[in-house]
């Protein structure tokens, strides 16, 4: 008996090394792949840094730095304005999409389908060159100032475009609010207006927060196409700098600008989300 227990204790209870196959090898295939990939990135970034260092030119810098900053501000201004205006415009469209009246429903559906189904570039060209073709008509109704100017056309087409996307986001979020919330409000005798602004919208906006952030980022990236109709945003200034100097660093600086901008926005949105959903979390009391 004692022999047996000591045998059991020896073979089963004593700690043994892990079987061969479970032990981590010092250099597995996975590790080698990972380090090789990281090395490729390191070489890539290093060569960009070296390229920027070698082609550093104080004249170039002093000439283009203010232009880049100006272009950057133009991009931000364009995106912020069109997202805000598009947000306002998206309200009636989202309501139309949820409306029981067939005509409104169809119209909103058509609007959304058109703007989500065609490239932003095509919409921009249609508004700028296409509508610009009817110059006399616009002059007759005193609207030519709008269609003459590439900046206002960019703003208009971005507003129309983002309104379609934002309407879908808003609709999805509103549909996501449980029906009981509306029924509860009704049974309390709240008017429809109050129900919408005090009960449905606050809950819907929390759901919509993340998609709105994504839409913002997509607009910043999408705004680069306005450089094609000669609006000098960040991309427009970059293209101008490149066409004047044939110096590739123009594009690298633009990439750095865009990446920083998007990353800041992403972090900012995370903070906003943390703040606005703090009542939904259990951990921090």
């Amino acid at each position: 008996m004692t022999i047996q227990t000591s045998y059991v204790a020896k073979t089963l209870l004593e700690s043994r090394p892990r079987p061969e196959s479970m032990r981590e090898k010092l250099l597995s295939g996975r590790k080698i792949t990972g380090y090789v990939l990281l090395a490729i990135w390191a070489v890539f970034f290093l060569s960009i840094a070296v390229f920027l260092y070698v082609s550093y030119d104080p004249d170039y810098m002093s000439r283009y730095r203010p232009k880049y900053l100006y272009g950057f501000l133009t991009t931000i201004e364009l995106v912020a304005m069109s997202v805000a205006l598009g947000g306002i415009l998206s309200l009636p469209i989202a309501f139309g999409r949820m409306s029981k009246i067939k005509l409104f429903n169809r119209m909103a559906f058509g609007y959304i389908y058109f703007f989500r189904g065609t490239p932003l570039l095509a919409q921009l060209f249609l508004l700028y060159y296409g509508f610009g073709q009817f110059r006399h008509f616009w002059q007759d109704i005193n609207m030519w100032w709008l269609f003459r100017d590439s900046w206002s056309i960019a703003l208009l087409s971005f507003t129309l475009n983002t309104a379609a996307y934002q309407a879908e986001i808003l609709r999805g979020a509103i549909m996501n609010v449980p029906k009981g919330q509306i029924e509860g409000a009704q049974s309390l005798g709240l008017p429809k207006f109050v129900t919408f602004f005090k009960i449905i919208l606050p809950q819907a906006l929390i759901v919509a927060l993340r998609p709105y952030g994504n839409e913002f980022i997509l607009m910043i990236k999408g705004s680069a196409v306005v450089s094609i109709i000669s609006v000098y945003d960040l991309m427009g200034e970059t293209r101008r700098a490149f066409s004047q100097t044939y110096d590739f660093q123009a594009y690298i600086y633009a990439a750095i600008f865009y990446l920083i901008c998007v990353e800041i926005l992403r972090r900012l949105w995370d903070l906003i989300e943390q703040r606005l959903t703090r009542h939904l979390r259990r951990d921090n009391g």
Partner: protein
Amino acid sequence: MDYYLTLLSFGATGWGDEIAHGVLFTVSLAICTLPVGLFMGFFLALGINSKEPSIQRAAKLFTIIFRGLPELLTLFIVYYGGQILLNLLFQHVLGMEIEVNSFLAGMIALAFVFSSYASEVFLSAFKGIPQGQYEGAFALGLPWFKTMRLVIVPQLIKLALPGLSNLWLILLKDTSLVSIIGLTDTMFATGLAARNTKEAFFFFALACVVYLALTFVSSMALEAIEKRARRGEVR
């Protein structure tokens, strides 16, 4: 009316053939990009899911960069940067001159963007597959590749399809950007026609109609595919 029909006719007087070629180009560019983007996206997702932190970091860096850059800028960087790089390699080292194929440049740029978004879709699809599936495959003694091919991927496709169909529609629209580096896609052909005939509204509206038709047809096809993927489910 007749005037617009002659504008659209095939042959010397009309722009129909140019635009039809453009549409064909748009579709073939998107179709060529799709498998490359899917393949890269799948491996990016595997990389981000990897236990090895160095692989994770490398894959994440890729997605952060190509999801943060505007598609247009990515295109320019691949096109002009690729040209400079190839010049550097071939002219100075081998003494040859090689020109970047702009179709290839467009395809690579679009595939980079597509794959970084696709990795996100695959990643959330991976989350939908229970751990027991891997353990079951491991218990059966399946090697990694077979586990993927026979057990994980068939389930993954079903979960990823809605997200991927969305990305396909985005890809189809993003192909319009290649007209800016001079590729003869739909946008380029209609733009050419608009400039030559001074009928900008007609031709750019036509471009919009073409893209709408393409999205319509592909969303029908995607719906059919999704339905087929769900055929094993209990209704």
